[in-house]
Structure formats: structure tokens, C-alpha cells
């Protein structure tokens, strides 16, 4: 049912964990629907994502999309990271079953929520 790439990211998820005093944190989904994703960003003064970690409660696809999304934005600028789409995550994973596409949407949303959180904090700090 899952591609090898998905299984690879499920078995060996990249960037699992949390970042203490992160620049931005995004949490999307809810336990009722069976998926929660949390993304932690460490962003430097040039607005480059220096580090990213995630925690996910959910199915195999939820774990794999979180993992892939963190890989895709690591080292990128905030602006670039904002351009991430769920379709790009799916493509990078070489496909997802139709019933699991919503997980990639969650991953996109989690990244964006974390960046928004960062921006809010940044603007407040100004």
C-alpha cells in the first residue's frame, strides 16, 4: 500500500524530536481525527531554517509526510519553506494512497503554522 520511500521515512524518520525554545512551533490536526503533527523550527538571523524537528501522532503516512516535510525545509529560507505544497511532499514520497492524501495536507499546514508562529513572535519582538 505504501511506496518504499514512505516506508523508509516511516522506519527511519528524519528529525524526530523537539527544539527547546524554538523560533516557531506549529501544531495541527487533532486526536479525534487520528492525526496530530507538531513542527519545531530553529531559524537564524538570516531567516534560514537552521534546524527542524517534528512529533507526530498518526498513521504511517502521517509520520512519513512529517519526516519528508522537515527534510524539504531544512536549510531553506523561511520564504522558500512557505512555498512547500502537499503535492510536493506527496511527489517526494513517490505517491500516497488516496485515503492518505490528507496527511500531506497536514504536513504542509504544520510547516506553515510553525512559520506563522515564528513570524508572529518576530513581529512582536520588533
Amino acid at each position, binding site marked *: 500500500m505504501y511506496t518504499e520511500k514512505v*516506508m523508509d521515512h516511516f522506519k527511519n524518520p528524519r528529525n*524526530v524530536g523537539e527544539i527547546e525554545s524554538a523560533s516557531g512551533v506549529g501544531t495541527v490536526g487533532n*486526536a*479525534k481525527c487520528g492525526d*496530530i503533527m507538531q513542527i519545531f523550527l530553529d531559524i537564524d538571523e538570516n531567516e534560514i531554517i537552521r534546524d527542524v524537528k517534528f512529533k507526530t501522532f*498518526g498513521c*504511517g503516512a502521517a509520520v512519513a509526510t512529517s519526516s519528508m516535510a522537515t527534510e524539504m525545509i531544512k536549510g531553506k529560507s523561511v520564504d522558500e519553506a512557505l512555498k512547500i505544497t502537499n503535492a510536493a511532499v506527496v511527489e517526494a514520497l513517490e505517491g500516497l494512497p488516496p*485515503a492518505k492524501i490528507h496527511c500531506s495536507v497536514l504536513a504542509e499546514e504544520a510547516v506553515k503554522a510553525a512559520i506563522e508562529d515564528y513570524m508572529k513572535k518576530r513581529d512582536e519582538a520588533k
Partner: protein
Amino acid sequence: MKVYLDNAATTMVRKEVVDAMIPAFTTYYGNPSSLHEFAREAEQLLDSARKDVAAVINAKPDEIVFTGGGSESDNMALRGAVAANKKKGKHVITSAVEHHAVLYTLQAMEREGLIDLTILPVDEYAVVSAESVANALRDDTVLVSIMFANNEVGTINPIAEIGKVCRDKSVLFHTDAVQATGHVPIDVVEMNIDLMAISAHKFHGPKGVGALYIRKGVRIPSLIIGGGQEKKRRAGTENVPGIVGLATALKLANEHMTENAVKVGALRDKLLKGIADTIPDVKLNGHPTNRLPNNVNYSIRYIEGESILLMLDINGIAASSGSACTSGSLDPSHVLLAMGLPHEIAHGSLRLTLSEFTTEEEIDYVLDLLPQIIQRLRDMSPLYPKQK
């Protein structure tokens, strides 16, 4: 190591069963309705299968109709009983934890305007009480359909009591015994059962063949219409090899029922206890004692079922979360929700179902691996309390 712990979804066909089926494929292959030796041989196989199945549940041979599986048997019983009793009324009672072959069929019938449906709640163990059935009965109730044993959590219902309540009010009683048959003793007479669904592949028989017990005197129309097979109750050339397989498997399951219940029950208890001892924050689902001897079902807090299954699968262990037919879906088990579990906990259930072919080494292997797997997934979960 390959460990198959998904026997509630389906079972391996045992060797004796395959051996019994093969001659019906290649030698006694006649159509039982024809008039010649090949046909008579096939008919004899059918007759003796019917006798064997009837004997196991204390029925008469002509009370057994062979079908294409458990779902067909359920559909036939429900649609048939309602159609046959149109004049009396159209109220039907069922429970919230039925298999979809019953629940969805009744809900479809309700949408079609064929019935008024009462769906009874269950207690925290998924038990349907005879009192709740008695209280729901109305003058226009024509059918009660309550499952014998639940496919997800293994809880066994008080079928004899429910049967008595129905018989006393002359209301037809159907029970979906797909999970129970071959695993626990069933006596259709003593239990006052009118209709009962059986499926071969749940007791080491073949897939795609089942039976419906129809008590003598109960007349229901066919679901599948055509030739006059099965005394005009189910059209279609009889699946002779499948029926022989069903009967052989059921006979063997019945002969070794007590011994298997002890053997499988002991391994099951080891697994139950092992999980409770080594993994914190788990909750046993289903009745602690009135449950199928082969069923283990735990909710494992903070993590989601599919992830557990994938991790187990990577390690060669076949398990399930909820029932097989819904494991591809996003909704948590309707059974666990009906038992009162909150959504996030219902999402994290693990069903391990054993068979007489399960070994102690296999259980040890699972008990060895499971705690690590759970810990790994919990470490990834935002719900898991830190420093715990």
C-alpha cells in the same frame, strides 16, 4: 520470524481441509442437481457436509443453507426475515457493535424505508444485555439481530438469554455467529436461535463459503434467486468443494474445541499479562472473562493503531487494529466508540488474535518486541507526556 496474529480477520486453511476439498475439485466435480453418477457423488458430499455442520450446532440437516460467506448469510437473514414478516410490522432491533454486514445492511434497509431500526447501546465491555433487548421489544418488532461474539474485542453476548426473551415474544432472533462458530459451544435449540450466520474462513476453512441456519418453520425468501438449489432457498450451483471444506473445518474445530480453548487461552493469557506488565498506559478492551479464547485487544495510549501495525509488520508480525475491513479507513472503530472510549484512545487499539497454530515462541517474540515498538512510537508522539 513470521507471526500470524490476525486470525479474527481470517485463518489459514488447515491441511486436512485442503485434502478433503481436492477430490471435489477434480474427481467428484459433478453438479449435484444433475442426474448421473458424478452428480450423486457430489450430492453425497453435500449431504454429509450438511449433517456434519448441523450436528455441531444441534440443528437438523435441512435447517442448514450453504451460502457464499458470512456477509451473504447476514444479508439473507436480515432481508429475508423482514420481507417474510411485512404483515406483522417492521421494527428491528440490533446493537451498536455489530459487524458492518449486519449494521450497514440494516441501516440501508432503514433508508430504503423497509424497517424502523433500534440500535441498542452496549456496556463498557461491549455486552448487549437481554434486559435492553426486552425493553426495546415492541408489538411491531419482527426481528432481533445480536452478534454472538464481537469480532474486534471478542466479547461474548448472553445469547441464550436474548434468545429466550425473543422466543417468549415470538420475535425472530438472528445471531451473527461468524466469530463464535467453531470457537465456543453453540446449541441453536437451547439458545432459542432462529437464524444464525456462519463463515468457514474464521475456523481454518476456505473463504467464500458460509452457512445460514434457518430454524424449521421459519420461512424466508431467497436473497439470490434462480435455480432450485438448497431447497429453493439459495440459487446457484453449490460450491461443493467449499462446502466440504467448511464442514471438515467445523468438525475438526468442534472436536478439539475444549482442548484448543485451553491451549490458545493459555497463550492468550500470557500475551494479555505480558503486555499489561511491560507496557504502561494500556487498557484491555472487551470483557475480561466472557471473551473469545483467542482475542487480545488493547488500547495503547498516545499512539495510533496503523503505526503500530506497520512497525509490527516490519518485524514479521501480522496484527490488526479494529476489524480488517475498516483498517483502510480513517474512522476509529465503531465498536470501541460504542463502548465509550474517547476518539484518541479508540484510534490506538491493537488486536492480536491467536489460533491453535500459534506457538509460545511466537508469543515470546511479540512480547519481546512490542514494548520497544510502543516506546519508539510514543517517543515520536506529541501526546506522550514527557519524562514519563
